[in-house]
């Protein structure tokens, strides 16, 4: 989470001050957790809506699976990856996406808050603005992604005969956590564009988030330019492809990149925080 980057990146101080910062960060996390749980509770009150949300999301994710099935019914390999390996990739994208929706769904509220003039309330409260924004909502729909992704992950790894020892399991947890932070950071930064483009109907954030769809297939499937973009500009390659090189035990020159992929999350979080700060300096209020 970004708060980790926040509390560690800073000037050198006495250990006592560091402990104080960690305690403050812990308090922020507790507040955040409580707010999100409240949102979840509120959503669960409307049972029919909850079911529709979960089913709708599950259907949407299943569409991708149908696509993968249709592809592999024609050929045994795509860019050297077989059906279950691609399924594994798919799961490595779907689970973090679901976690992001479940934990951090507040990104999409920035536009609404800024355009309706409610953003000033956020700024005067004694909590970091970005934390409040993230705590605006919790998306129950995310549960569908997590459940479906976990099921695919389990099934694919069974089909591939992967051996899950402690090391691999621990790395998987790191990868999932890192990817969740990465996706959250990308979505958050994309939504911060509203500070530069306040028009209520601009859909650039949607577009940027759509690019995570690329992560559902192995990078070698894409041409050179696209592949370069997916690693450097919009780093979706770190969500699934590079980590799976390590998890699936594949031979590749990029294994090292795979090992450090979870770190892409905190790095992206720092960048997102920077975008947020720059956006705030541009914010002038919409009048009230």
């Amino acid at each position, binding site marked *: 989470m970004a708060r980790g980057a926040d509390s560690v990146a800073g000037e050198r101080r006495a250990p006592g001050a560091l402990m104080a910062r960690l305690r403050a960060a812990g308090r922020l996390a507790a507040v955040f957790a409580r707010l999100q749980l409240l949102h979840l509770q509120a959503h669960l009150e*409307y049972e029919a809506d909850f079911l529709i949300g*979960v089913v709708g999301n599950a259907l949407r994710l299943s569409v991708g699976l149908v696509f993968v099935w249709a592809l592999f019914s024609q050929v045994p390999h795509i860019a050297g990856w077989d059906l279950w390996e691609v399924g594994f990739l798919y799961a490595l994208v779907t689970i973090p996406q679901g976690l992001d929706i479940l934990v951090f769904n507040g990104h999409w509220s920035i536009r609404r808050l800024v355009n309706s003039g409610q953003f000033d309330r956020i700024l005067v409260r004694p909590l970091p603005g970005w934390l409040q924004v993230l705590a605006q909502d919790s998306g129950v729909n995310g549960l569908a992604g997590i459940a479906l992704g976990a099921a695919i992950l389990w099934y694919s790894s069974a089909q591939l005969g992967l051996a899950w020892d402690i090391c691999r399991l621990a790395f998987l947890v790191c990868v999932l956590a890192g990817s969740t932070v990465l996706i959250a950071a990308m979505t958050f930064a994309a939504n911060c564009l509203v500070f530069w483009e306040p028009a209520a109907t601009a859909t650039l954030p949607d577009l940027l988030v759509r690019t995570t769809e690329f992560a559902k297939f192995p990078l070698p*499937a894409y041409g050179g330019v696209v592949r370069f973009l997916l690693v450097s500009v919009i780093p979706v390659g770190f969500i699934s492809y590079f980590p799976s090189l390590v998890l699936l035990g594949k031979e590749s020159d990029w294994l090292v990149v795979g090992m450090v992929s979870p770190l892409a999350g905190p790095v992206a979080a720092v960048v997102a925080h920077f975008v947020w700060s720059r956006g705030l300096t541009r914010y002038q209020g919409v009048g009230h």
Partner: protein
Amino acid sequence: MPATHAAERAAADVRLTPRSGYLALATASMQRSVAYRNTTIMNLVSNLVWMVVLFHVWQSVYKSSPSALHGYDWELMRTYLLVAFATNALLSLAVESEMFFSIGSGRVAVELMRPLDYMSARLAEALGAAAFEGAIAGAMAFSLGALVFGATPPASGLAALLFLPSVLLGFLVKFLLSFLIALLCFRTLNTKGLVWARAAVTDVLSGALVPLAFLPDWLHALAASAPFQAIIHTPVSVYLGRLEGDALWHALGAQLLWVAALWLLARVLWRPAVRVVTVQGG
């Protein structure tokens, strides 16, 4: 709201503005699309992103396999992707969400007070927006097809002639299906979930995701007997010349029948649905 003003101006200034309320709504909707053209373009580019993914993945598949899969060679498949993309741009998610949201937010109560039939009014708005969306999507698809994709033109003169009417019929089917699902919005707040569900089912069964021939047998059978294929599969098949002679007219007739059947269903279900107007907004 532009729609109200358009209707009022239509009544007051008969010389210059359309008399018909529906035409006024359609014009206003098109004007709104033009005014917010960045949104339209961004939506199209967003769908384009997914098409780029499809393009690359299929390219990989065709590189390592025999030349024709289910009767589609690489050139046909490229064209299919492009034409399906353009056709799918009509009645975009944005327009549809607008309709769903108007029910979810309670604005429908205001709409119901107007002397216009609710469904026809929404259809007029959808057509107005689609005129603009279609023009932009068509231009995008054409330039991409000619410059980058190497797509093929319509298979024959007849195909070219019948393509647009087929698209129009498909559009009507899409609208009616969407409207039927929107009726559910009278009973639930989670319009986003409904949109997702509708989009998912439509994407698979209409041929927007993959040509129907590629679906697993049971899904293919389901698609063949469902209205969704009229939205993408039929128009694109007309364009590619995969429907000829009798099959062509049968398919067009089927589209017409689905439009009639769905329209009837919508009219029947409308009364009971609207009786449950719980205004959720304020």
